[in-house]
Every structure is written in structure tokens, then in C-alpha cells.
């Protein structure tokens, strides 16, 4: 038994604080890339803004309060709309509320950074600042603020279980977003599986890569943009810090830091599921993915991630009250 003590509620709040911050990081990246893409595209072929709503799964909610998926409407909805639970403002509010409830494990630096990021987005006057004609700077500022927050986590969060739950939440959220973006974009860009393997000289594919991570390391390693390289890079590459494989590996490691269970073994359902998922990714190939169908594969992976989340919840956040008492 470890000496450090972490309340289940505190673990859960740290986990969700981290997920919400990472969600904002993904959304801001997606929005910014999309805005740049729209500038590059000769004419609008498909409605790129509408497809963003599909990624976050908020299309129906959007349609309840907006008519048209125009750039301005979608930016407003995804950035400032407090009624949209996935908007940057809503996620920052939720992250901050979670941080506030666990101020005894969040360092003052982390708290102040998150607090000022929230205040910045909340107080921003999008009309006065010409935001809708050039959102780049503001989006960059949010991104920089989040990275600074992560910096504080790295350099001054005490290395104990609360930190492991932070990274557990962070990597599971990132894994979820990477698979979602790939799923939606891929479907829109390449409806026919036959085209897998042909060179794609397309701005939109580059935008897809940029919206998940940097494109330069991809080019260095894989050269031309091909569908199979993209799938490899985003799902299976162990060196890309945003690939599904990397995220699951990191989440698995965080879980094992908490229980001190060695790799390849398990003591609870969360560890069993995370080990299983990691093992599947260790041995998965692009060929198998295309044989099973990308969408079907991603669907299955997402289901497993949800089950992993539920297992973490049951084991750590909502423990059984009939356990032995630790005195």
C-alpha cells in the first residue's frame, strides 16, 4: 500500500480538468487549421465548417440555434457559445471548476494559468476585435496559453498519483480526438477505399495532418501524402506524440504508475482493458485496418476506449464501499 492518499473525487476532477483542457487544445487547432484551409481553397467544394461540427458531434445542437454553417456561426458556436458544452469557453469553464474543487493538488501556477486563460476567453469581445475576419492571433494565444499550462504541469506538479490521473485523462482525450478527426475527415475526403495508396496532392489532406499534429515530421518520415501513410502516422506510429498508439501507451503507463502493476499484467479491469487495447495496437497493421474498413476499425477502437474509461471510473472514481479499511 502506498503512503500517498488521493480521494476518488479528487482523482476524477483532475482527470476531467485535464480532459477538458486537452479538448480545447484540439478544438482550437481544428478551428485554426480550418480557417487557414478556407483561405487556400480556390472555391468552396464542400462545406468544411459543417464537417467540423461532425467531428465534435455537435451538428444537431448547432442546428437548434443557427441556420447556416457559415464561418462566423461555426466559429462563434465552437469558441464562445456557452450553450455548446464542447465550445472552448464551456470546456475552459468546466476545466476551471474542476481545478477549483481540487485546489489542494493543483499548484498555484497551474491554477493562475488556467484562471487567466478562462478570463481571457470569457472577456474577449469578438466583434470589436475583428475576430471573425482574422481569428488566427486569438487562437494562437489560446494554444500558447494551454501549452504554458502543460509546462507548469510538467515542471511543478508533484509526482504522485494525482499527476498520473492528469496524464491518464490527457492521453485518453487526445486518443479520442485523433480517431474522431481521422474518421470524419477520411470519410469526407475519400469515400472510396480503392483510392488508398494513390498519391494525394491535396491541401485538405495536409490540413487534416496539421489539425492533428505537425505535418513536417510526417513528410520527413513518409514523404508524399498517401492515405496509408496517414493511417500509419495517426494510428500506429509509436514516435508521433499524437498518434493513437502513443496515447494509449502513455495512458497505460499512467495507470500502472498508480497501481505499480508491471507491464503485461493486470490487477483490475481498467488495467486489463488498457493492456488489451495497447497490445492490439502493438500488432495492428495498415493492411488489416483497410481489410476491416477504416471506419469500422475506428468505431471498434472508440468503443474500447469508452469501455476503458468506464473501467477507470468504476475502479478509481466510484469505488465499492464494501472494501477493507485502511487505517
Amino acid at each position, binding site marked *: 500500500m502506498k503512503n500517498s492518499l488521493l480521494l476518488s473525487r479528487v482523482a476524477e476532477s483532475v482527470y476531467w480538468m485535464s480532459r477538458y483542457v486537452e479538448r480545447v487544445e484540439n478544438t482550437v487547432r481544428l478551428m485554426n487549421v480550418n480557417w487557414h484551409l478556407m483561405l487556400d481553397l480556390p472555391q468552396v467544394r464542400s462545406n468544411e465548417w459543417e464537417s467540423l461540427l461532425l467531428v465534435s458531434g455537435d451538428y444537431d445542437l448547432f442546428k437548434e440555434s443557427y441556420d447556416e454553417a457559415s464561418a462566423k456561426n461555426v466559429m462563434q458556436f465552437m469558441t464562445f457559445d456557452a450553450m455548446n458544452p464542447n465550445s472552448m469557453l464551456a470546456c475552459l469553464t468546466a476545466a476551471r471548476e474542476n481545478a477549483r474543487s481540487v485546489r*489542494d493538488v493543483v499548484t498555484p501556477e497551474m491554477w493562475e494559468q488556467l484562471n487567466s486563460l478562462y478570463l481571457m476567453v470569457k472577456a474577449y469581445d469578438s466583434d470589436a476585435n475583428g475576430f471573425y475576419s482574422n481569428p488566427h492571433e486569438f487562437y494562437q494565444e489560446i494554444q500558447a496559453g494551454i501549452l504554458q499550462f502543460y509546462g507548469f504541469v510538467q515542471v511543478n506538479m508533484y509526482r504522485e498519483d494525482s499527476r498520473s490521473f492528469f496524464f491518464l485523462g490527457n492521453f485518453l482525450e487526445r486518443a479520442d480526438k485523433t480517431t474522431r478527426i481521422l474518421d470524419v475527415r477520411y470519410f469526407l475526403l475519400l469515400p472510396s477505399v480503392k483510392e488508398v495508396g494513390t498519391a494525394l496532392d491535396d491541401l485538405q489532406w495536409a490540413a487534416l495532418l496539421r489539425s492533428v499534429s505537425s505535418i513536417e515530421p510526417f513528410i520527413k518520415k513518409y514523404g508524399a501524402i498517401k492515405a496509408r501513410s496517414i493511417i500509419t502516422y495517426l494510428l500506429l506510429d509509436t514516435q508521433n506524440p499524437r498518434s493513437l498508439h502513443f496515447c494509449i501507451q502513455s495512458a497505460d503507463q499512467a495507470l500502472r504508475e498508480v497501481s505499480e502493476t508491471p507491464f503485461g499484467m493486470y490487477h483490475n479491469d481498467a488495467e486489463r482493458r488498457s493492456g488489451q487495447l495497447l497490445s492490439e495496437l502493438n500488432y495492428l497493421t495498415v493492411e488489416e485496418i483497410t481489410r476491416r474498413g477504416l471506419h469500422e476499425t475506428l468505431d471498434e477502437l472508440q468503443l474500447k476506449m469508452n469501455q476503458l474509461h468506464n473501467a477507470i471510473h468504476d475502479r478509481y472514481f466510484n469505488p465499492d464501499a464494501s472494501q477493507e479499511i485502511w487505517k
Partner: protein
Amino acid sequence: MTHQNLNPMIQSYDPEAFFDELFEGPGKIRANFSEFGDKISQLSEGELSIRQKAADRALIRMGITFQVYEAEEKSEKVFPFDILPRIIGAGDWDFIDRGLRQRIKALNLFVQDVYGPKKIMKDGVVPDWVVYSSSGYMQPCEGLTPPLGIWCHISGSDIVRDGEGNFFVLEDNLRCPSGVSYVLANRQVMKRTFPEVFERMGVRPVSDYPKMLLQTLCAVSPPTDGPPSIAVLTPGIFNSAYFEHAFLAQQIGAELVEGRDLVVSGGYVCMKTTQGLKKVDVIYRRINADYLDPEAFKPDSVLGVAGLIDVFKQGKVAIANMPGSGVADDKVVYAYVPEMIRYYLDEEPLLQNVPTYLCSRDDEKSHVLENLDKLVVKEADGAGGYGMLIGPSSTKKEQELFRDRIMANPRGYIAQPTLSLSRAPVLMPDGHRIEGRHLDLRPFVLYGDEIKVMPGGLTRVAMKKGSLVVNSSQGGGSKDTWVLGGQEEGL
């Protein structure tokens, strides 16, 4: 020392007809605070306002906020802080200190008596109906005896001064008095922004409060092998004093828990942790006693822990303050505190009560009803400066409203003469003037193996001109409180 650099703000300050904590006359700082006067006089006019702004920024950065609720909107506010300290001389403090010890001792004996042998009631000193109609009386506490017989581990009595500078106790807070975190934060900010004024003044330290609190809580813990496991029980982040709960937990190394983090299992109160259940020995509760245990008290409470009181009865957990201690901070019971001191301690009370008219007594009720425009009327179980009528500044309509309320529920109201509360100078927002504002003092008293009084306490100031309401929920602010004549506190 001659006052050659005398700051014009100080020179032009007029205490008017009030008792002023710092000035004895226009432009004249009290002789026993002359050292402070010399130091402050040497600052230039602009300097004071620069330091005030630095202090404000420090408080915002530290996130020392409280929640307020207005029109269903909740928001966080910074507790306004005035840079000029409220100073208490060693002699005055010695008197307050002795008076508080006497008072808390008697109050604690009273609570123990009420839930036990009821001697004071049988002897006719405090009538039965006064006890049983107090909103803080809790029937399920009958027959309980807490460790060391202590019910009120942490208390804070509000003290005011009248026009002559006499001290009075305005009310006793024996449930979960808040504000001590501001005392500690104010002192920190003060030392950072005003080091050269603070230095060598012999201000008694407040920084060991967390250590004393921890000692007090450990003293009542059931026997344990190692150090007791302590939890601060908070209602959660939406409570106005949440910052204080988190702060105190951090300072004493306790876990900050909500009711949903606790469960009764195997005869113990336990915290739910990622490593399983962990036993709790002492609960410093910051939720109302009614909500502590849905099995013993309010059945619909979701903030507490079912079965807590049963565990307490088995001696397996201590609770501070004890549920039921609130019976003694009802404002009708308050009127009997001087009698309690005589009854239990056979001593004359040192700190006086403000004269109090009980509307439950017919003759006093008619006096109150005839003088609604002169008196302050309070709800017997009110708090936070709400539910009050301040006669001299009230409208006819408000007076009629209170007349109806008193007629309908005489037990629910008391009245006191409007005191001409003492004042102290406060720096105005423009930074160029100081003006007198009314204030009070909430000292904090700890009662475990012994009684410990924190030197000073929370000085609350009504920031609005002429206002007598100092509560933070109603625009009040605070000052650092200096008790002189002690060992110097390091910077």
C-alpha cells in the same frame, strides 16, 4: 519626534464625534500608536495608494475570493482589503483575551449542561423555553458527551466598541465561524507591501494559527497508533467560504472532503480514495450541523454522511464543532450569557453584552415596538447581516414590516440600542483621502486541551460611508489587525 513630513491626508483627518481606533483628535494619532504614526507620516501621499494597489493585485492573483449570489447569478468577488491596519494596544488586548476565555468556558459548560443534567434550567437561571426554542437546539444531541467535554472547539465572537471605546460582545458564533483565512492572508499581504512600516512594531504573530488548530483537533481525536487522520468537511466549491476550507485543509495537512467522499463502513467513518477506504479520526466540519448525518438529523441532506453520529457515539470519530453547539449562539440565549458566567464560573463577566430586549417578553416587546425608529432589530437566528432593521436609517415602511413580523413571532426577534460603533481611517478609492468607517472585530478562540486565543482576529469594515453593516456579503471589507506588545513577527 517631530512630524515634519506629516502626510497631509493624516493632518486633515477628522474622527468627528466617533470613537476612532487610531486617532484621538483631528490630525492627531493616539499617543500609544505614535511609532506607527511616525512611520506612516513619512510616506508621501502617493505612496499609500501605490501600496494599496499592490496589495489588491496580490489578493486577486492569489485568488482569495468568496462567492456571492445576486439575482440567481453567482460570481466570485475579492474581499476588499484596506491597507491601513487596525491597531489594538497590549492593555486592551489583554482585557479582550481574558474576557473571551471566560466567555467560551461558560458557553461550553452551558452546552454540556443543556444536553446533559440541565442544572441551569432547573435552577431557573435560563428558562426551558429559551433553550428548546433556540434554532440551534438539536434534540438528537441529548445525552451526548464529546471528548474532553468540548463542544465549541472553534469559535469567533463579534466584538464592537461604542462611542466611549468600551468593548461589547455583539454575538457569539459557535457553529462554523469563518474568516480566519483572511486574517492570515491579510497579514501576508501586509508584510509584503508594507515591510518597513511593519518592521519592529512588535506586532504579535498570527501565523501559528494552523498549528494551534491542528493541536486542538488532535487533542479530541479518538486514540490512534500514529497521528490522527483529519478531514475538513466542506459543502463544496459553491459555498461562499470554499476558499477558506481549501486553505485551512492545506495549512494543517488535512484532506479536504465533501460528504460524498465519506462513507460509514465497519464502524468507522472512511474516505473513499483511489487505494480504497481510509479511516477518518477527526472531522472539522464546515457544513451546518443539520446536514451532517441524514440518519440523525435532516433526512434529505445530501451533504453529510449517513451513520456519522452512530460512529461518534461509539467513540470512533470526533467532530468539531460538535453538532448542537449552535444552541448557544441564538440571540435570545445570548442575552443570558452574563448570567451563565456568574452561574458556572462564579465570576463577574469581563466583556459586556450589548443591552438586549427580548420581544418574547411582553414589556420589552412593547418597548421595542414603540422605538422601532431608534433600535436595531435582529432575527434571533439570523446571520450575515441579513434580516436586520437598523431603526435610525430605516423607512416607515420597513418599520411596519418588522412590526408585523414581531407581532407574528415574538420569539424570533430581539432588539438592541443602536451603538455608535467605533471607526478607523480607510483609504478612499481615489487614493488621496482617508475617511472614517465603522468596524468590528472577530477574534478566533480554539478550545481543545486548553483555550488558545489568536492575537487580533478579523477586523471587518463597512466600506460605505455611515454604514454599520460590516458583512462581506453586503459590501464590507477588512483590515489587518495588529496587536502590539508581543514578540516580533519575522518578515
